[in-house]
């Protein structure tokens, strides 16, 4: 029901009445904007955020290179959006749920997902929590409260509303943050999710990474409105637009959003303005749809460099520390990659488990028939044939921890 005043002339509203400002704290040179106040961010936490941003960047660079060398089938980079993802994650309680789209590996890095864990998923080996069933970058971690990635876009948004409603009922003071791109926000699922969250007063933070492109489609072909943020009004929801390359602004906005969500059961929409500096994925080549000049302009707004300058100004970071960090991360990526590559694939039986809680009889028959077939042609199915031989069992103490 609407409760507004009556008018007696057909006066239309064009929507331009809504003008959403952008929240910024940190300038590219690492100093604060005039009148801006840095959030309360202690030394250790600031460095944890920064290290996670750098680690994400290094991981992305090395794994894209590995994909180009043919060692990996597919990869997706977070490059340029590290502040948006990690700033939002750092503002949460570590036990809050994160439902990501697919470009949010920085959230996992921040929460302590190890490079070994990343590599096991990327190479789909026997230690991958997802049992080698999904394409690279489809990470998930129950212990880190990070829902396993699903490729179909926007499906996680209404799920986040439901998950957070459950958290509200559980009464343990947790919320859910759901990440998605400005492209995914066009899906019907986005609209359903926001409406239900507002109606049912759900502690969920909708975090839109507006990075300018949905594969090749620029945001001007995605929506006619001023970004995604104005849609919040239609659902009567709190909203803020933030400079997504400004770690301090993202962190401040997300922290306040979490307060609204957890203390007042108010869903919040955050639109972080950023830029996908890398290709959509290793299968994409952006030179077909955008200019190097445009990319260069955004490269100058690098969120990592911006935070680094702020840290150096505070005396919390130095170029020597930077160099040491980069070197140790690169070494760690290479070492963990080599380890993961050598590990065998998941066993053949994992093909049929987890379809249901228990393997149904007909599926068991299908597996048995497959085993008979593979025994007949072992050389044609090296991965499957490997685990038919009971002597070949790659034991590893990390394996025992799996699935966490």
């Amino acid at each position: 029901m609407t409760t507004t005043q009556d008018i007696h002339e057909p006066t239309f509203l064009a929507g331009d009445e809504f003008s959403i400002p952008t929240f910024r704290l940190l300038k590219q040179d690492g100093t604060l904007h005039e009148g801006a106040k840095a959030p309360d961010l202690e030394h250790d936490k600031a460095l944890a955020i920064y290290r996670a941003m750098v680690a994400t960047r290094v991981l992305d660079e090395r794994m894209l290179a590995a994909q180009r060398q043919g060692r990996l089938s597919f990869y997706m980079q977070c490059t340029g959006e590290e502040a948006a993802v990690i700033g939002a994650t750092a503002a949460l309680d570590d036990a809050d749920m994160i439902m990501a789209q697919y470009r949010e590996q920085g959230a996992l890095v921040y929460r302590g997902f190890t490079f070994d864990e990343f590599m096991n998923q990327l190479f789909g080996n026997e230690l991958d929590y997802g049992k080698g069933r999904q394409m690279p970058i489809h990470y998930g971690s129950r212990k880190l409260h990070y829902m396993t990635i699903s490729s179909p876009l926007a499906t996680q948004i209404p799920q986040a509303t439901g998950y957070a409603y459950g958290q509200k009922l559980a009464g343990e003071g947790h919320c859910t943050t759901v990440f998605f791109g400005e492209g995914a926000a066009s899906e019907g699922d986005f609209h359903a999710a926001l409406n239900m969250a507002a109606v049912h007063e759900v502690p969920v933070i909708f975090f839109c990474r507006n990075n300018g492109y949905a594969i090749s489609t620029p945001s001007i072909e995605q929506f006619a409105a001023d970004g995604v943020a104005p849609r919040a009004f239609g659902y009567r929801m709190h909203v803020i637009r933030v400079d997504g390359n400004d770690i301090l602004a993202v962190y401040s906005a997300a922290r306040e959003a979490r307060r609204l969500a957890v203390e007042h059961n108010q869903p919040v929409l955050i639109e972080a303005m950023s830029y996908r500096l890398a290709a959509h994925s290793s299968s994409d080549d952006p030179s077909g749809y955008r200019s190097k000049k445009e990319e260069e302009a955004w490269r100058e707004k690098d969120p990592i460099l911006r935070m680094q300058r702020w840290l150096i100004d505070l005396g919390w970071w130095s170029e020597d520390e930077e160099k040491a960090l980069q070197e140790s991360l690169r070494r760690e990526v290479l070492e963990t990659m080599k380890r993961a590559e050598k590990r065998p694939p998941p066993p053949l039986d994992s093909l049929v488990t987890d379809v249901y809680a228990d393997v149904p009889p007909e599926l068991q028959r299908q597996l048995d028939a497959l085993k008979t077939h593979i025994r007949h042609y072992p050389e044609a199915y090296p991965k499957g044939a490997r685990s038919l031989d009971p002597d070949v069992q790659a034991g590893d103490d990390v394996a025992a921890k799996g699935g966490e």
Partner: protein
Amino acid sequence: MPTMNLLQAINNALDIAMGEDDKVLCFGEDVGSFGGVFRATSHLQEKYGRARCFNTPLVEQGIIGFANGLAAQGSVPVAEIQFADYIFPAFDQIVNETAKFRYRSGDLFNVGGLTIRAPYGGGISGGHYHSQSPEAYFTHTPGLKIVVPRDPYQAKGLLLASIRDPDPVIFFEPKRLYRAAVGEVPEEDYQLPIGEAEVTKEGTDVTLVGWGAQMEVIERAVELAEKDGISCEVIDLRTLLPWDQDSVAESVFKTGRLVVTHEAPRTGGFAGEIAAAIQERCFLYLESPIARVTGLDTPFPLTLEKEYLPDHLKIVEAIRASVNF
């Protein structure tokens, strides 16, 4: 005759259809100036303008709902769903709207002009969501036509026929073959019939039925079987709905044996429908049980994709089992 890969043949068919009829429109995610993520719509926007070839927002239910409306208005939309795995947000529009538009209005309105193009199938390390063959969800829906080409020549002729067909068509493109399948394709306009299977190889001992990318796999299996002295007849169904029962039955009357293969999971897969219909018509002629060589009843895997897929070795084993029954 020029040589084209499957993508070029599709692009060429779209070009001919748009050139001939101003009412033909091509749209979908990244379809505009970029020409689609697989480049099936390359240069069409340059040639026919942004009003007729364009990017849509990222919303499949919107794409097909919009296309239904356009088709009802009399336009001829060719809507692209970027991967068949992502067609499901549009399931309601396709199953409840596209398929029933003509019937429910007593033919006052129809969306016969609509063609939905979607790349389908595995073998590209695409995991759950870039590999599926969802044809059977749609073959269970009267009112739709389902067409799947096996090579560039078929793709062009069948796509032109689909666009001009008086009924809505879902055109599933075997993406594994987009660049891998290359063949001679006439430059000029031609159509291949919808609803008619094609006997691609004659034989006497066993009939093999498939469609799309699976035809190439059947071919490899047949080469092995023929070395054993087994004479195989091969049928490309080409259209799954309505499917050409007569051609398959006629072949099975002759061979007495049938092997059907598809990548999709076995239970509820279209091979089941073929097996049921053929045993009804050919019961007394059958020398062995009709065999299905399919994916397993699991989501499409990644690391164990090779083990999952109904490859030529599994098909040749089924042929041998059928002949030696």
